């Protein structure tokens, strides 16, 4: 039950994109087509879970005991960066098609604040997560990211076909859609 609450909270109530403003760059960048956004979600989910697992261990078993929590940011980003590069290299070899589709955005996962943000949030005292909860939290957030980016890709495909007025085409319309989506998601407030 605990885990379900964490997931519902992360997906709907405190949606990583719509309520926490994390991962906006890929949200706007890789959401032009539904299949691409699905691929991106997959990559994010994988990296996010793995990164949270690793950083949680580093934080609780290296940084806290040594009293050097202030190194959190720098050590996390190192871990995330190398993880992403690893995923990139592996993907290039294993699934060139997916690699092609995600294109330049794979390296951008490094600078995807969603990953770093979630790894930092996962060790926040407020939540007091244990390892398993932290991983579930990461999966929940990745699901939230996937949900919003895929919905959003659908809407953008729709907008592509209908000729949005010139001034609003592209990012502005996308942001307004995100705004309305955020409005709608406020309905989930206090669900858990």
């Amino acid at each position, binding site marked *: 039950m605990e885990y379900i609450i964490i997931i519902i909270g992360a997906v709907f109530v405190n949606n990583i994109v719509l309520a926490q403003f994390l991962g906006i760059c890929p949200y706007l960048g890789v959401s032009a087509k539904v299949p691409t956004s699905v691929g991106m979600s997959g990559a994010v989910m994988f990296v996010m879970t793995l990164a949270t697992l690793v950083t949680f261990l580093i934080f609780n078993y290296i940084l806290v005991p040594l009293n050097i929590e202030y190194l959190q940011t720098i050590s996390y980003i190192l871990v995330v960066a190398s993880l992403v590069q690893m995923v990139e290299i592996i993907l290039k070899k294993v699934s060139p098609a997916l690699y092609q589709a995600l294109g330049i955005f794979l390296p951008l996962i490094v600078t995807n604040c969603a990953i770093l943000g979630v790894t930092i949030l996962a060790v926040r005292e407020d939540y007091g997560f244990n390892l398993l909860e932290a991983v579930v939290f990461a999966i929940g957030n990745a699901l939230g990211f996937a949900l919003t980016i895929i919905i959003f890709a659908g809407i953008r495909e729709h907008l592509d076909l209908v000729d949005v007025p010139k001034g609003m085409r592209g990012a502005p319309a996308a942001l307004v859609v995100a705004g*309305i989506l955020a409005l*709608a998601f*406020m309905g989930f*407030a206090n669900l858990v």
Partner: protein
Amino acid sequence: MKVLTVSGSPHFHADHSVSRIMYGVVFSLIPAMLVSFYFFGLAAILVTLTAVVSCMAFEFLIQKYLIRGPMTIFDGSAIITGVLLAFNVPANLPLGIVVIGAAVAIGMGKMTFGGLGKNPFNPALVGRVFLMISFPVQMTTYPEPSAFSTRLADAVTGPTPLTFLKGGVDQGEKVSELMPQIPDYANMMLGNMGGSVGEVSALAIILGGLYMLARRIISWHIPVSYLGTAAILSAIFWMVNPEVYPDPLFHLMAGGLMLGAIYMATDYATSPMSKTGMIIFGIGCGLLTVIIRLFGAYPEGVAFSILIMNAFVPLINRGFKPKRFGEEIKNG
């Protein structure tokens, strides 16, 4: 013989037009409008009028100065948005806020994307939710209904059945104790209860819905699946614990469920295209509405759930295509 016209086939065209459909919807809204005028009086008339006029005005201004497209204010769609927006706010809402709502509904909800048919979200609901979040105090002070009311903004305010029940249950009171304090079902059906301008009378809305069904403006798929899901899900909760969860009949008649299911969810531009898609959409709306009503912070979830399902529409359209000719054989 004059110059011949050459065009692609077909050379016959059905007697449909966008404005005929739209004015059909406006016509079907009249019963609900009359009920609201009866119970909320002058205030309701003022709110409705303001909303309609400002929706048309904003559409006119944006078309004229920003988009510079063909003039569309008389196709009736802005009127519908205006009426539905008015139907979704309390009758004693300050008119300035109504104007803001109209600006958001038309400007942000509709014209941002290029106007009628291009908007991914229902404009009236965008306006309503925007107001709901922006002006929570004004948007949740509902006037008490009273027959042939002529009062303006100084009306006695009171809770809607939904807020009353939710507030009570939240403090651990029992549904059976709370029920006698709200209008009975006959009154709720007629619209003699607190609520937004046009949502109060389930009967009037159903009447309008039947008219639209008869004229084939809408199909039964969305309203039936929406209301059905809401009824079934709330019935399940009700059977589990009738002291915490009110019965399905209450859910159907309270709040904006009827209005939402018949008028908002069936909006062409923001609902799925195929019949299966429509049913999925209705089920989604129903589930979300009940979940938000029972477990969320807001007592009413209709607007939120329809907006959220609006966002899913492109995906539903992708995933649920109409049944194609010649497909059956392959499977069989």
